[in-house]
């Protein structure tokens, strides 16, 4: 392209930016895999759009979902996003395992540059666009119900956070179709990610995707924290909150304080790349150690942002499916708070080998080991909760048990790595990869899946299929052990992480086993989708409209399933830690209130989707140096924000009559449902009404 209008419009785009053109020019396996992935994104998008058009659902989606500010719908959209991104990142994980299994003394089928993109997107997506949306979605759905509130404190901001996250995820997906992604890993260490070594668009895709995601998460943290502090129902003192709300609160506090360091790190890297600053370059006084500190000042608390909500889920699940109150509630709350504080004191353990003095390493090593103590307290509390309880091995409970066994194992290897001298031997090997997968798969994914199974009936009004749930569970657990235990062996034998080719034949059997494990994990995800399909097909038989399928303890089970738009017809008043559990035993929780009143709720708003689309456009412009697009996008975002501040007609009212009709339909159903004992809760007899025993 010559000077003129085209470069100004298209920035640094050229035909070779398209993977299809690259595959046409160099038809090797690696480029074809890349083009195939790009094609899947395009064809998938076209198919989804065609399906929606055929069903005539665009208007419905736009007015009922995309512009919705209802925390329940936003929560569901977050989780849908998480599943889509999980699918992509899991396939990438499988590809990496296949590559390494076939690349012993051979080049395998994926080129080094492509392999580097795979591990970078896999990590980036799993953390920012699978884990974060999943836990944010779960908290969004459940937390307001648990504290007896009708919404979060800032519903429109909630929608903005969702669409910023979606925009960031879209940017990562776009990198499959236009250009390529970063090869700098999920942590994006400079100086490798500086212009001198990574001049292409990949790092810029990474920078802007992560920045948008982190801004979205900061806003989410603020929103959740204010909701929990200010919007609890009458009588819900802090020490009466369900444990999931406690973990949501601590995660929110971590988001508020730990996301800004990430924003600073990526913003400074962007200044280096776009405006020739020298923060992390090799020359003119740049110092990449600043990046390492900033990134891990975010990165370590992030681990607990991910894990704490799962701890909350396990606390709810273990208590419910043991029919016992949580053992050691106070100690669990204190342990959660202690972990929150300690998580800010350990970040240096991510770079013990990068040159600080031995006594600094020692201090951070000891702090790291100290986190094991509150975590151990929690494990014991859950075990004591099950002790002499009426334990039912449902899918969420199975995930909880698998978590306890597996997470403790990962904790042990964590204690090993916390010794700086030992870390010097194991750092940058597959031992570390095995360790953090051993923490995050049970400590995040199992928790999220347990929560998904546990609260799904509440959100959609029918139970998930138990048989396929168990198949999926079996694959997740067996797949995990097969895929990651070999990596401990390989890592201890010195195999470096992020290796595209392997030159040690004795590694081969272990890599085969890990490859089989990865395939099993893909099977686990496929089973989840089969389960969803089967459950939707058989939904009529599994309805739990009365709302209490598991003999639940908290407020979220005291309303219909799915809940009405306004959640609670009358805001509840609580006087214990288990308001619904006690309520069922003291008097009739299904008695209609004396009178219904009008309920005012926030009106749908286009602000969220508009800001999301504009942010994606602006970021895309920045990636491709299409400055016009970046400037227009940024100005338009400001215009939307200002326009929103002028909006006045922002609420709508549900009349008392309508509330009464909705409630009466539910109360009639509850009155007609047969209360079931716990043995029958996994059968079609379960209509969502629990038989109350003393």
């Amino acid at each position: 392209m010559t000077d003129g209008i085209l470069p100004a419009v298209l920035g640094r785009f050229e035909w070779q930016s398209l993977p299809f053109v690259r595959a046409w020019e160099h038809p090797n396996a690696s480029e074809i895999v890349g083009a195939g992935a790009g094609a899947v994104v395009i064809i998938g998008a076209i198919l989804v759009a065609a399906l929606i058009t055929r069903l005539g659902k665009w208007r419905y989606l736009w007015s009922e979902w995309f512009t919705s500010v209802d925390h329940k719908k936003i929560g569901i959209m977050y989780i849908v996003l998480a599943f889509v991104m999980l699918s992509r990142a899991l396939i990438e994980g499988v590809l990496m395992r296949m590559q390494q299994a076939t690349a012993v003394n051979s080049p395998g089928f994926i080129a080094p540059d492509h392999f580097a993109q795979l591990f970078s997107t896999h990590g980036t997506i799993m953390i920012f666009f699978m884990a974060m949306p999943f836990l944010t979605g779960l908290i969004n759905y459940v937390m307001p119900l648990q504290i007896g509130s009708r919404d979060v404190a800032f519903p429109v901001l909630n929608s903005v956070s969702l669409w910023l996250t979606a925009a960031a995820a879209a940017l990562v997906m776009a990198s499959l179709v236009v250009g390529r992604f970063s090869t700098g890993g999920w942590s994006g260490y400079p100086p490798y990610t500086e212009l001198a070594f990574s001049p292409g668009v990949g790092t810029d895709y990474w920078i802007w995707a992560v920045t948008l995601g982190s801004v979205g998460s900061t806003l989410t943290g603020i929103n959740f924290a204010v909701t929990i502090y200010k919007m609890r129902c009458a009588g819900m003192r802090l020490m009466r909150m369900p444990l999931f709300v406690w973990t949501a609160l601590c995660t929110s506090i971590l988001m508020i304080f730990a996301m800004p360091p990430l924003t600073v790190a990526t913003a400074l890297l962007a200044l280096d790349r776009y405006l020739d600053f020298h923060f992390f370059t090799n020359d003119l006084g740049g110092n990449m150690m600043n990046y390492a500190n900033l990134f891990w000042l975010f990165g370590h608390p992030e681990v607990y942002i991910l894990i704490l909500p799962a701890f909350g889920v396990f606390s709810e699940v273990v208590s419910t499916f043991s029919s016992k109150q949580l053992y050691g509630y106070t100690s669990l709350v204190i342990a959660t708070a202690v972990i929150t504080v300690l998580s800010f004191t350990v970040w240096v353990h991510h770079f013990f080998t990068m040159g600080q003095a031995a006594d600094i390493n020692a201090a951070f090593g000891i702090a790291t080991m100290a986190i094991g103590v509150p975590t151990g307290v929690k494990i014991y509390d859950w075990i004591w909760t099950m002790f002499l309880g009426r334990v039912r091995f449902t899918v969420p409970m199975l995930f909880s048990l698998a978590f306890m066994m597996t997470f403790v194992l990962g904790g042990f290897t964590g204690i090993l790595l916390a010794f700086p001298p030992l870390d010097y031997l194991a750092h940058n090997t597959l031992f570390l990869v095995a360790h953090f997968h051993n923490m995050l798969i049970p400590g995040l994914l199992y928790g999220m899946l347990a929560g998904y199974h546990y609260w799904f009936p509440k959100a959609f009004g029918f139970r998930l299929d138990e048989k396929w749930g168990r198949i999926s569970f079996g694959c997740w657990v067996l797949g995990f052990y097969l895929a990651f235990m070999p990596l401990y062996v390989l890592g201890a034998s010195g195999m470096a992480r992020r290796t595209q080719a392997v030159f040690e034949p004795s590694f081969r059997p272990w890599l085969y086993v890990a490859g089989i494990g990865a395939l099993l994990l893909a099977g686990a995800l496929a089973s989840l989708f089969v389960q969803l399909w089967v459950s939707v097909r058989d939904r009529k038989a599994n309805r739990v409209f009365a709302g209490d399928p598991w003999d639940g303890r908290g407020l979220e089970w005291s309303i219909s399933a799915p809940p009405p738009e306004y959640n609670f017809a009358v805001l509840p008043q609580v006087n214990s830690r288990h308001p619904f559990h006690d309520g069922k035993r003291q008097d009739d929780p299904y008695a209609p209130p004396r009178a219904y009143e009008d309920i005012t709720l926030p009106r749908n708003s286009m602000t969220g989707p508009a800001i999301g689309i504009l942010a994606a456009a602006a970021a895309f412009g920045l990636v491709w140096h299409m400055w016009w697009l970046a400037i227009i996008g940024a100005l338009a975002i400001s215009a939307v924000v200002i326009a929103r501040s002028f909006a006045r007609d922002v609420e709508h009212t549900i009349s008392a009559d309508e509330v009464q009709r909705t409630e009466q339909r539910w109360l009639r159903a509850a009155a007609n449902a047969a209360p079931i004992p716990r043995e029958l809760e996994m059968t079609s007899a379960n209509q969502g009404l629990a038989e109350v025993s003393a």
Partner: protein
Amino acid sequence: MSADEVRQAGLELGRNDLLTHEQAGSAIFGFWVFLMSDAVIFALLFATYGVMLPATVGGPTPADEYKLVPTLIETVLLLTSSFTFGLASVAMKHGASRRQLLGWLGVTLILGIGFLGMELHDFMIMFSDGAVPSRSGYLSSFFALVPLHGLHVFFGSVWIVVMMVQVLTFGLDARVKVNLQRLGLFWHFLDVVWIAIFSVVYLQGMIQ
């Protein structure tokens, strides 16, 4: 809910406007929390500046570039603007005439723009001396920290204009009042950050 109950830190509407006072509870608290996370960003940039201060690599040094008189005038302008915003808040709280409120907001705006103009002028002089961010790590960290504060003042100024228009359009309805309270917190926060910049960046730089 009584009027005397403290709903948030900072200026309270209290018994002057009970309804808005109650609504302000989570709105203002949420903004405090936002400022807290913004403060983390500034804290990290201060730390980065501190670490990179020696990295002048033979280029301009703080002592070469910082001038006491203009920064002192900037400080006075910004501190005065905080005071005048305080007067605007008091005018809002006690139901003074709309002209008085708009007047104080206008004075604040002019002082803010004056600050921005002087700061830009400082930067131009630095640029003409060759003190540009691409010259050294030290200058990179300076130009990340100080202009970010300037950018905040710029956004605050735009916000003042928006609020003046809203006062004229809607009068003092609940949302205008809550947003004026938020803007007040934002403006005072910028003052606090500037005091840190003046002491840590400019004064310290001139001592060396």
